[in-house]
């Protein structure tokens, strides 16, 4: 007896590849869209094309790396408090 095929679209490697391409494309398009905005920087240094893209990229990278750093001190086994 053949079982009903499960919906597993997001498990397939080709889907994941498609999603990666989409993600890069969206990021690229958003930076391109920046050429069509009226630049009026709030503080002077935030006026260049793709400022928010750079801010997002850098701050998230730093946040992740920083969290890995503090994890060295702060991570503990799940039964830490039970001992």
């Amino acid at each position, binding site marked *: 007896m053949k079982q009903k095929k*499960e*919906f*597993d679209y*997001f*498990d397939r490697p080709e889907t994941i590849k498609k999603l*990666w391409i989409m*993600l*890069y494309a*969206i*990021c690229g398009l*958003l*930076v391109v*869209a*920046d050429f*069509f*905005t*009226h630049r*009026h920087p*709030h*503080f002077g240094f935030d006026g260049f094309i*793709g*400022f*928010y*893209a*750079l*801010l*997002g*990229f850098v*701050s*998230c*990278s730093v*946040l*992740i*790396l*920083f*969290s*890995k750093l*503090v*994890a060295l*001190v*702060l*991570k*503990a*086994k*799940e039964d*830490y*408090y039970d001992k």
Partner: protein
Amino acid sequence: MISDFPPAAILILGALLVPFFKGNAKNWYVIILPAVAFYLISQLQIGSSWQVHFFGFDLTFLRVDKLSKVFGYIFTLNATAAFVYAFYVKDSTQHVAALFYIGSALGVVFAGDLVSLYFFWEIMAVASTFLILARKTKKAQAAGMRYILVHVFGGLCLLAGMVIYITETGSIAFNAMTDRNLGTYLILIGILVNAAAPPMQAWLADAYPEATVTGGVILSAYTTKTAVYTLVRGFPGWEILIVVGCIMTIYGIIYALLENDMRRILAYSIINQVGFMVTGVGIGTMMSLNGTVAHAFCHIIYKSLLWMSAGSVLYMTGKSKCTDLGGLYKTMPLSLIFGGIGALAISSFPGTSGFTSKSLIIDGAIHEHLVWVWLVLEIASAGVFLHAGIKFPYFVFFAKDKGLRPGETNKPMLIAMGFMAFMCIFLGLYPQPLYDVLPYEVHYQAYTFNHVVAQLQLLMLSALVFFLFLKLLKRTETISIDTDWFYRKGGRLFYYIMDRGLNGVNALSDRAIARAIPAWLGRFSRTPVSSMVTLYMRATGKDRRSIEDFRREANPEATTLLPMGMPVFISIVFLFSLFVIFAFF
């Protein structure tokens, strides 16, 4: 007039009747109560009040202005949805505790004076503890105990501050505090404990994830948001709050990134979100205060939605650790879609309520030219998408399929989630109804081309970073040590030191004073002469053996060289005769 009745009373008095309802009637009853309260709040006239004279104070149980009304709306709206979600819960205790909790939160929001505010503040702490204890696990009980102790501490700070404040000003009215002295700072600390501000923030991520499925949904909304309300009312423009708020936003992200338990991720993200609101209060302009209130309003909706989504996963699978979950999109697609909408809203994705509310706070910082504050808020906005926007749905519903096939959750849960998801999108596309009920007039347009592009750049690049760094973000079966270490491990250390320290002194005193010294004194008084001679001989360096020989041979006491009995008898007779003479003559 009936409509001038404090809305808190409807829920608190209504809670008392819950045990008399059976089966589904009980659930319908608890859904209808907050809905009625919502209607009555909408009928309250701005400026009306309801006072009671009590112990020489005029207690104002009802103060209606735009600020109290908007919090009243969202508290009752959220309560209605939460009780729909909790339709499967037949346990009266949980419903009564929840109604007391929500009712007293309304009490705080509508309280016009410090005394009644404090009264409801404390009911809130106690009632909420029952929502944690109701999980009935050992961990939940321990977390509940720690939770109530922290809140008792916060309550005491608040009380001490209020006593000082009332003595100084002679008034119990609760309005914006202008004096900065011990009294107002203590009040501020008491409130900040409830807002989960560092260093007293660990209770939130410690206790909420141990609550029941529905308890978590309800808890996520009220304690921190009444604290936000109290800050908006009492402490607008206190610059220290900018610092506190900025720390909270970053703190929440870092811990949420480290966390493995999905409900704990959401708990840390509450701290992050409240950080935005606290910052808005600190900036203190009309725009940023509007932003804080709007953000609190939207936050309650999407955060409840996220807790509902996580709750339905916990309800169906019994698991809440990311390492145990994954691949649930196959069997719980609706929970995923609704939770995903909440995740987009918390990340202030354009088109959702977070976008139309948080932008007010960030623009408030820009208008005041607070460059660092603005930068921190933007960084934190990017980080929200990392930890709550993507991490939560990704590890729970996608990631590695762990073979769980629970099936979709029950209908009432889905209806509640669907309603909240609708609200997130509705307020995201058409925020005007919300802007109309904010305390100050709003002249703001979130949807400009620039703003949308900037926000999307920030978020999509964050998403890119998430997937590029996915290996680093892989979940491990660990917990992260937080400031609750000081009262969990530190408490034990304190106990150990006290045990060893004080009990050591005890044992030493016991050995020295209670046993050794009296024994020696006893020996000394029985054989004073030989004892003294022994001491002398020891001091002059005679060895032990010759001392013993001397004592055995001489034995001065035994030879009645010194008749001890007689002098003692004479002294007693003498003292007694003195007593008789003084007493009777």
